[in-house]
């Protein structure tokens, strides 16, 4: 019997999904304009600054679109797999979290567009924004904590009522994701609440710059795994069902998530490799820990291909790669996430290069980095999220995906990949030539090196415009899905393959895993933090825009 998605839970999920796509649209307008400015195609009117647009773009895309989609998606899977409906307390926490985050988002966007927080989404001190910007960020983070508590609550109740049973994979992975988030956001919360808000109000004169950056990047690296893990949930749990196959290994999937919990946090220094105030030893140590977090992604790559191959061979494929052709290429619910998987290959390779200690000097703060994260979050994660929407919106609203919408989805995915190829491809190349990121139109007084970069900026602008068409199309598709014909859509949850081993209980002994995670964080950060607290000289604030 098909289990229908609970209508009240559906409202919570849809609220998150629609807010996410609204943020994508506004952020996308900003992004397209940025590309056109750097490409020399437009000049902005006097009251809009390039850096205001860039701040809005970063916040809306990297913090709002992502967080809202993720929380909506996780709540949907937790509702479906942990009892078929959220407990009242969990749903309440979901709504309170949503409202708190939304108040923060609105305040933040207003302050940014008023030009009082042109500090980009990393808001590095001692650039000093309006205190309302930092308050807005704090509200978004606190709201997300409440949302996480709702998921933990539902999970814990399920475990009590089902003692001895293995938890559903989707729910397990959701708990890991929100635990990761909870631990990671402590850093940025301390930075914002303890350091920046009092300083921006003027209650304190100076700020410890090195400490603030360290707290930010303690958060900033696991942030990208907060984005990635929900995409991995789709790849591990949903995609096997969509292709008509089975999950390759339940235990290895859980183990990979636990490895992310352990190794994605004590690694923030790889974003600070070119900075003073941190010794070479601790930089290298965190680089070693960073390389360990590559391993669960190597495991995931194997699991994905294995799922596809086992499915294809079960259908009769015999050659080395013949099973590849048996995948449902014409189904956008598979095709979009698959393109996300494929593009994760260059995306991840670029990340390994970025983290490579002294080698980071080749790419630090160049457009290569921008190219990198447009592959990781803006393609692998985004296309997976787009692919999810085509079944999630119908499943939670009692509708069905039509063949026409499916076709539009395929087209949107291709447009996205073409635009990203031009934009990110140019960014990677011109970044290797030294072109800086986060910089408005300039030729540095026609210096020959800078003039050489311009053709790449034109290619980036064209790629950006194609991507904007892609943004319009996905927003259109989301609206169309909200008005799709009524019907029943099953929530796709994969079954585990017979070849998979039984799952060891120790994978759900949270105390052990959290203990190791905390120990690694203390190991990687204690001594450098003590050094920062003892040996740094604080700085006054500045408003340089």
């Amino acid at each position, binding site marked *: 019997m098909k289990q229908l998605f609970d209508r009240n839970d559906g409202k919570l999920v849809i609220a998150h999904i629609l807010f996410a796509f609204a943020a994508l649209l506004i952020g996308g307008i900003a992004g397209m304009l940025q590309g056109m400015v750097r490409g020399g195609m437009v000049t902005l009117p006097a009251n809009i*600054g390039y*850096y205001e647009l860039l701040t809005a773009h970063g916040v809306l895309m990297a913090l709002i679109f992502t967080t809202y989609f993720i929380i909506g998606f996780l709540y949907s899977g937790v509702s479906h797999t942990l009892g078929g409906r959220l407990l009242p307390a969990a749903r309440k926490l979901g709504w309170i979290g949503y409202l708190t985050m939304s108040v923060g988002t609105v305040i933040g966007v207003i302050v940014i567009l008023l030009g009082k927080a*042109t500090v*980009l989404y990393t808001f*590095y*001190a*001692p*650039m000093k924004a309006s205190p309302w910007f930092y308050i807005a960020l704090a509200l978004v983070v606190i709201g997300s904590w409440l949302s996480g508590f709702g998921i933990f609550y539902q999970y814990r109740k399920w475990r009590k009522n089902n003692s001895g049973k293995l938890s559903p994979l989707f729910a397990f992975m959701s708990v890991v994701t929100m635990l990761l988030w909870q631990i990671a956001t402590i850093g940025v919360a301390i930075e914002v609440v303890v350091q920046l808000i009092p300083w921006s109000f003027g209650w304190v004169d100076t700020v*410890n*710059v*090195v400490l603030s*950056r360290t707290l930010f990047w303690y958060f900033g690296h696991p942030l990208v795994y907060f984005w990635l893990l929900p995409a991995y949930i789709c790849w591990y749990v949903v995609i096997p069902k969509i292709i008509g196959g089975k999950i390759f290994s339940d235990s*290895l999937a859980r183990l990979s998530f636990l490895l992310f919990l352990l190794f994605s946090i004590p690694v923030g220094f790889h974003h*600070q*490799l*070119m*900075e*003073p*105030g941190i*010794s*070479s030893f601790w*930089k*290298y140590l965190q*680089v*070693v820990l960073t*390389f360990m977090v590559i*391993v669960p992604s*190597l*495991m995931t790559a*194997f699991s994905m291909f294995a799922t596809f191959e086992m499915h294809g061979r079960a259908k009769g494929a015999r050659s080395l790669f013949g099973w590849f052709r048996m995948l449902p290429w014409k189904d956008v619910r598979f095709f979009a996430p698959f393109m996300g998987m494929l593009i994760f290959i260059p995306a991840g390779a670029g990340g390994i290069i970025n983290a*490579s*200690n*002294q*080698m*980071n*000097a*080749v790419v*630090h*703060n160049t457009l290569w980095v921008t190219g990198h994260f447009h592959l990781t979050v803006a393609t692998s994660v985004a296309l997976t999220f787009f692919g999810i929407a085509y079944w999630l919106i119908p499943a939670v609203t009692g509708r069905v995906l039509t063949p026409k919408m499916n076709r539009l989805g395929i087209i949107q995915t291709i447009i996205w990949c073409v635009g990203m190829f031009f934009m990110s491809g140019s960014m990677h190349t011109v970044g290797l030539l*030294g072109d*800086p*990121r*986060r*910089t408005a*139109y300039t030729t*540095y*007084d026609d*210096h020959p*090196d800078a003039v050489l970069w311009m053709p790449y900026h034109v290619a980036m602008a064209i790629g950006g415009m194609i991507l904007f068409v892609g943004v319009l199309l996905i927003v259109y598709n989301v609206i169309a899905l909200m008005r799709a014909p009524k019907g029943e859509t099953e929530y796709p949850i994969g079954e585990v393959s017979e070849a998979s081993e039984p799952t*060891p209980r120790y994978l759900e002994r949270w105390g052990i895993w959290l203990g190791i995670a905390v120990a690694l964080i203390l190991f990687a950060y204690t001594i450098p933090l003590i*050094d920062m607290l003892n*040996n*740094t*000289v*604080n*700085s*006054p604030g*500045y408003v*340089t*825009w």
Partner: protein
Amino acid sequence: MHLHRLEKAWLTIGIAMLAIFLIVLGTMAFSMGVTPPSAHHHTVDPANVAKTAPFDNPGIKQVSDKHYEAVMVAYAFGYTPQTLEVPAGSTVDFIVTSSDVVHGFAIVGTNVNMMIEPGEVSHISHKFDKPGTYLLLCNEYCGTGHEYMKSTIVVK
């Protein structure tokens, strides 16, 4: 936990490759001195940069044959001194701080690429073999004039 033999093989190969990368990077950093910038921790009072040695006298001075020391201050939106000139084949030790916000310090076409933070002194050395006019630019957003923030290094 049981792994398929091909998964064991793949993870062995993958982890070995990552280990090789780490050994190469670690050896270069700790045996050959090719570290990330600012290996030694030096601080300075960011509110009094102009009065604190050596930043009270920014500029380039010769230390020995083909070896120079360049003391520079980054600010919104430029560098002091505005240009530098050295003969080809010289090694220059850059000693840089900021008198306001965080800036970048990147010489296009070289591995000189480091962050300049108020309260901290950044160090990097580079040997300029090829003559030319090198573009030194700020690659960390620092305010409205960020895209104009640059300097040149003339190597003759």
